[in-house]
């Protein structure tokens, strides 16, 4: 069965420092990949997605992610973190030929930002 692993449950970074959140997936073919952010009491907001083409994807709020097929990874990066980036981040995968509705989410990584 397809799965998504986010190895880091909680990460703390200093404001202005760079950020990388890890995501690994288990799926044989090319997946559809997503990163969402969830602030406390808020709904999920799409940061970026990868379907095909350029493996480096730009998203909103200065985030980017790189699809690496050889490593089955889709890590999220930001060069300089702002205090407002503190939230929970979810990686998700959709499988080609699978259910049109079934996004498989990781368990999330909570990001804390210290001043």
């Amino acid at each position: 069965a397809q799965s998504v692993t986010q190895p880091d449950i909680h990460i703390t970074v200093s404001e202005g420092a760079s950020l990388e959140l890890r995501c690994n997936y288990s799926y044989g073919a090319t997946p559809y990949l997503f990163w969402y952010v969830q602030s406390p009491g808020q709904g999920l907001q799409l940061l970026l997605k990868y379907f095909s083409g350029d493996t480096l994807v730009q998203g909103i709020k200065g985030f980017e992610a790189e699809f690496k097929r050889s490593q089955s990874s889709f890590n999220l990066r930001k060069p300089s973190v702002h205090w407002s980036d503190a939230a929970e981040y979810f990686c998700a995968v959709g499988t080609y030929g699978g259910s049109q509705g079934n996004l498989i989410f990781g368990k999330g990584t909570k990001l804390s930002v210290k001043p």
Partner: protein
Amino acid sequence: GAGVSQSPRYKVAKRGQDVALRCDPISGHVSLFWYQQALGQGPEFLTYFQNEAQLDKSGLPSDRFFAERPEGSVSTLKIQRTQQEDSAVYLCASSLETGGIYSGNTIYFGEGSWLTVV
């Protein structure tokens, strides 16, 4: 409305009680999704509608869970005889076109309905 609206935002139900959770998707959106998010977990798929047709209900955990979207807009998720393990946030999402997650359209999530079963 401007976004996906869910009601009630918070619901406390006694074990065995039936609950109904409502989702108003963005106007004109064809695809509608329901997800369940337990505390400390990522969302898990429940069911998917394309207009009024329920194309996938494979994620519904038991026959106590039922979802409908009779006119292709508002959707209701009903849970009968609630159990403590049903305590979770129920997220509704919608997107513009058919094809669900493969359409390339952004999927917009609501803020969720927080259900606590006591």
